[in-house]
């Protein structure tokens, strides 16, 4: 009986250790997923959003981007555009928020390919954006590049992918 309790305590101790380790030193994939979830939340905004709230959210979004970020969009309805640098992204995001009255963005699928050095990752995401003007969500596949900069994972590159060429 005493041995049983000892075994139980040992198992509980190991489980607590594993949990503590994964909390203090999370796997890069887990951190990247958390960052992407934050980015999706920051890209979403309610209808009739106050300008100050929009500014704050865009500022928070830009903090999750690398300074030399490059975004390449080539999609039906959007045309072909390339945006470079955080300032340009900030401008575009504010313009988008003022032009569209609300959006709900989510990434239903995420696939992460971590580089061997664990300082960069190639990420494929399916983006589903619900806009008030569209009856169905706008769906687009994107290829992202995440880089570890200053101890945190930031979005360094984003480009649209055509599943049908």
């Amino acid at each position, binding site marked *: 009986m005493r041995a049983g309790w000892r075994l139980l305590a040992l198992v509980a101790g190991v489980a607590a250790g594993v949990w503590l380790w994964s909390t203090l030193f999370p796997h890069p994939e887990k951190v990247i997923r958390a960052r992407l979830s934050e980015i999706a939340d920051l890209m979403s905004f309610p209808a009739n959003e106050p300008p100050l709230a929009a500014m704050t959210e865009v500022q928070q979004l830009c903090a999750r981007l690398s300074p030399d970020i490059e975004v390449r969009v080539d999609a*039906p309805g959007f045309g072909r555009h390339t945006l470079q640098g955080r300032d340009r992204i900030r401008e575009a995001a504010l313009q988008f928020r003022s032009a569209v009255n609300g959006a709900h963005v989510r990434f239903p699928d995420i*696939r992460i390919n971590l580089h061997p050095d664990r300082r960069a990752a190639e990420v494929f995401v399916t983006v589903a954006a619900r806009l008030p003007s569209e009856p169905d969500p706008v769906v687009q*596949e994107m290829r992202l590049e995440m880089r570890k900069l200053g101890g945190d994972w930031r979005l360094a590159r984003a480009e649209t*992918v055509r*599943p*049908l060429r």
Partner: protein
Amino acid sequence: MESRNGTPTLAMRQVTQHGEGRSRLLKRLIWGRNPRRTLLRAALLAATAFVLFRFLLLPVQVRGQSMWPTYRDRSWNFVNRLAYWGGAPRRGDVVCIRFTAGEHILILKRVVGLPGEAVAFRAGRLFINGQPIEEPYVRTPCDWDEPERRLGPDEYYVVGDNRAMPAADHWHGITDRWRIVGKVLR
């Protein structure tokens, strides 16, 4: 309705018995005669449903108009994931195509071009290897013009049935074999 010594009268007793009978019936309806066996059956049913609807027949809801009129917006269908285990997709099959990241959102299209073939649209008509192809499922007028494209060994040309849409707004083109999740049941 109690007698003087506190025992329930006949009418009361009948009500109590009736209530007990009802709760017993309810219990039996929920748990069955043998609760352990009922739980086992429920677990087996749940496991079968999980395997069936996750690995064999994927339930999907159609969103959008690109497969109109064959598949209407918001209708429900099943994708047979085992359809191409023993063979390859054939011309005319309606298939679901996955994105690189996962399978939560799929693209519903019809296979019109097979590996090695040359596919083109001229004045809204589909041409395979230079020959016009009859497409009885296309019921809308079409004016698409697209240059001939030769498919690679593991490539398929897929397109929706609603050709009334402008070609630029209609997702169509070449997909790789690995992206085809299964055949849509009809």
